[in-house]
C-alpha cells in the first residue's frame, strides 16, 4: 500500500470511530440549578407538570422538565436508551407494570436502586400487591408505585332493569353468563365486547383479571410458565362459554366498540378504575344509566378484586442526579395532597393508600345515578389484591395468550388444548420452565 492511501484509510477509520462512538453524556458541573427531566405520557404528564411547579418552589435548587414522550413511543425510547447503556434517557421515567419487570431483568443497572436512596420506608404506604412488583430479585426497590387500576364491573342499570336482572345477585361469572343470556333475549344487548381477532391491539384484560381473581397469572412467583394451569383453563373456559352463548360482541375495527356502546348494544364493561372518568367523557348522553360494582368471582365465594394494571416512577440508573430525582419521586408519590392533585389533573388513580381518605373518593357522582363510584374501587383495594409477577417475558406471554384466545373465539378451539400449546411455546421461546 502506498503512503497517501494509508493516510486516507487511517483518517477514515479514525473519523469513523469517533463518529460512531461520539456524543457521550453531557454531565455539566453543578453551576446553577440542577435540571432533571421526567418522561411520561398524556394525560398523566399533565398531573406531573402541575406538581412539578410546586416542587420547584419548595426546592429552589432543582428544575423539573416534564417531557411528554407519549405512549407507546416511550417504551421503544427507553429500550433504545437502555440498550445504549443509558445514554439520552430522562432522569425520571414513567413505566407501566407491563414493561417494568422487563427493564429490571433485562437491563441490570438500567434503573437506579431506590432502596439505597431510602425508598424502603414507603413499603407499606401503597395498595397491597404493588410493592412486590417493584422489588427485584436482589430485594431492592427499582420503582415507586404511582397509579393502580383495580378491576370493576360497569353495567347499564336501565338494560338490567328491562331484562329483569338484579345486579346484586350476580356473584360469580356463571351468574353473569345466565344474566347475559336473559339480557340478550330481552334487550338485544350483548353482555360484554371483546376484540375477538385481536386486530390492532390485544384485548386480554378480562382474561387476565379472571386469572388474577384466582391468584394466578402467566407466570408464578418463581418465574415458571403457568399459562396452562387449572385457573387459566378455567378463565379461558368462562370466556368460551360466554362466546358460545352469543353474548360477546366483536369490537374489532376502528370505532366499533364506541359505536356499539353508544347504540346500547353492550351492557357491561369489565373495566378498571380509569373507566370512572373515561365512560362519562366518552358517552355523556348515557348519564345516569351506568352503575359500577365489584366484578363477580370466578368461583363461588372467591376473590373479586384484581389489579388490572399499575404504573410507576423510576430513576434512570445512569442519571447524574439520582438524589434529586428521588426527591421528586418522594414529593410526587408519597404525599396525599400532591398525589390527589395529580389524580385531578392527570386522571391517575393513586396507589398511595393514605390518599383515599380524601372526600373525593366517597363523593356521589351524578353520572352513576348518585352512586359513589370511586368508593367501589377503594373498597376493592382494601380487600387486598394478590401481587402479580409479570416477569421480563410479559410482552411475549401476552402475545401468545392473545393468540390462544383468538383461536378459542374465532376457531372454537378447546381452551385446555390451546393454552397447553401456548404454554409450551412460551416456555420454548423464553427458556422458562413449565410449572407443575
Amino acid at each position: 500500500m502506498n503512503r497517501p492511501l494509508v493516510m486516507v484509510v487511517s483518517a477514515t477509520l479514525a473519523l469513523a470511530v469517533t463518529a460512531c462512538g461520539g456524543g457521550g453524556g453531557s454531565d455539566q458541573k453543578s453551576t446553577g440549578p440542577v435540571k432533571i427531566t421526567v418522561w411520561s405520557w398524556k394525560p398523566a404528564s399533565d398531573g406531573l407538570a402541575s406538581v412539578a411547579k410546586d416542587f420547584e418552589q419548595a426546592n429552589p435548587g432543582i428544575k423539573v422538565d416534564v417531557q411528554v414522550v407519549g405512549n407507546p413511543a416511550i417504551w421503544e425510547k427507553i429500550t433504545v436508551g437502555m440498550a445504549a447503556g443509558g445514554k439520552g434517557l430522562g432522569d425520571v421515567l414513567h413505566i407501566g407494570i407491563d414493561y417494568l419487570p422487563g427493564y429490571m431483568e433485562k437491563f441490570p443497572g438500567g434503573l437506579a436502586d431506590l432502596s439505597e436512596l431510602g425508598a424502603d420506608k414507603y413499603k407499606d404506604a401503597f395498595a397491597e400487591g404493588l410493592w412486590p412488583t417493584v422489588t427485584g430479585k436482589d430485594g431492592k426497590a427499582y420503582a415507586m408505585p404511582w397509579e393502580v387500576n383495580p378491576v370493576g364491573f360497569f353495567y347499564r342499570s336501565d338494560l338490567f332493569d328491562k331484562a329483569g336482572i338484579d345486579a346484586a345477585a350476580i356473584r360469580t361469572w356463571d351468574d353473569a353468563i345466565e344474566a347475559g343470556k336473559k339480557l340478550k333475549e330481552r334487550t338485544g344487548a350483548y353482555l360484554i365486547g371483546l376484540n375477538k381477532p385481536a386486530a390492532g391491539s390485544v384485548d386480554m384484560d378480562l382474561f387476565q383479571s379472571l386469572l388474577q381473581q384466582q391468584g394466578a397469572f402467566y407466570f408464578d412467583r418463581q418465574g415458571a410458565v403457568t399459562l396452562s394451569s387449572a385457573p387459566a383453563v378455567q378463565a379461558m373456559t368462562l370466556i368460551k362459554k360466554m362466546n358460545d352463548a352469543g353474548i360477546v360482541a366483536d369490537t374489532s375495527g376502528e370505532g366499533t366498540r364506541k359505536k356499539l356502546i353508544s347504540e346500547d348494544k353492550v351492557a357491561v364493561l369489565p373495566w378498571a378504575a380509569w373507566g370512572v372518568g373515561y365512560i362519562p367523557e366518552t358517552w355523556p348522553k348515557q348519564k345516569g344509566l351506568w352503575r359500577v360494582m365489584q366484578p363477580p368471582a370466578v368461583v363461588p365465594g372467591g376473590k373479586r378484586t384484581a389489579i388490572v394494571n399499575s404504573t410507576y416512577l423510576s430513576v434512570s440508573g445512569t442519571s447524574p442526579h439520582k438524589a434529586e430525582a428521588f426527591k421528586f419521586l418522594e414529593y410526587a408519590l408519597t404525599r396525599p395532597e400532591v398525589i390527589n392533585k395529580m389524580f385531578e389533573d392527570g386522571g391517575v388513580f393513586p396507589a398511595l393508600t393514605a390518599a383515599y381518605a380524601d372526600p373525593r373518593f366517597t363523593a356521589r357522582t351524578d353520572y352513576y345515578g348518585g352512586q359513589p363510584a370511586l368508593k367501589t374501587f377503594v373498597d376493592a383495594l382494601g380487600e387486598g389484591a394478590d401481587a402479580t409477577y409479570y416477569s421480563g417475558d410479559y410482552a411475549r406471554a401476552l402475545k401468545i395468550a392473545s393468540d390462544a384466545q383468538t383461536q378459542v373465539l374465532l376457531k372454537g378451539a378447546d381452551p385446555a388444548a390451546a393454552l397447553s400449546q401456548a404454554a409450551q411455546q412460551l416456555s420454548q421461546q423464553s427458556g422458562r420452565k413449565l410449572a407443575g
Partner: protein
Amino acid sequence: MTARLLTRRNVPYFLVLPALLGFVCFKAYPILAAAYISLTTGAGAARSFAGLDNYVRLVNDPLFWTSLGNTALILVVQVPIMLILALLLALGLNSKLVRLRALWRLGVFMPSLTGLVAYGVMFSVILSKDSGLLNWLLGLFGVSPIDWLGSPFWARIAIVIALTWHYCGYNAVIYLAGLQSIAKELYEAAMVDGAGAVRRFWSITVPQLRPILLLTIVLSAIGTLQLFDEPFVLTGGGPDNSTLTISLYLYQNGFRYFDFGYASAIAYALTLIVAGFGLVQLKLTGGRK
C-alpha cells in the same frame, strides 16, 4: 500540506470518503454487530456468547416457520398479480389513444408517494367490516360483509390488496419507461408482416422487456420478503399470526421482547433468503450476456 495531500491520486479517495464514512458507520458496523449479537444470548444489555443457539432455536420455532410461510404465500400470490396489473396499466398509459396521459400517469404513481401512516389509516377505514367502503361496494352486488381484518383468510387478502395498491403504480412507471425504449421499427416491421396486437405483445414487447421484468420481479420479491409496514399498521400480524411476516416477527422479538440476539438471528436468516434471490437473479440475467 494541503497541496501535498490534494494530489491527483488522492482526490478520488477524498471524494468517496463521505459515502464510505456513512457506509462504515451506518451499514458495515450494524451488519457486523448484528452478526455478533446473533451469536449471543441474554437480557438486553447483559449478553453472553451462545454460539449457534439462536439459530437452533429458530429452526425449532413454529412461529418463525409460520412467518416464513405467510411471507412466501403473500409473495407467491401478490407479486404476480401486482406485476401483471402493472404491465397492463403501463400498456394502457403508453397507448396513443389515451387522452390526458400526464394526469393518468400521476394518478397511477400517486399511491407510491403516500405516507405509511396515512395509508394505513385509510385502509383500515376502507376495510372496516361494518362501515367500510369496500364492503359497501361489495354490498351493492349483494355480497355480505367480509371481516377483512378479523378473519385469518381475509386478513391475508387485505394485505395483498393494500400492497398491490401501494406498489402497482411504481412498477407500472418502470414498465412504461421500458415500453418507451422499445424501438418503433420492430412494431412497424411486425405489422408489415401481418402480426396482430396479441402476437406483437408476446413476440416483441415481452422479450424486449425481459430484463426489466426480471428486475421488477426480483425487487418486488425482495420487498415482499422484507414486508413489514402493511401488516404492522393494518393487522399487527394477526389474527392468530396469519399475517405475521419475517420482519414483523423480527421487530417483535427485538423491540417488544428485548430479545436482540434472537432478532439478529432472524435478520440473518432473512438476509440469507434475500441473498438467495439475488443469486437467482444474477444467474438469470447473467446467462444472457
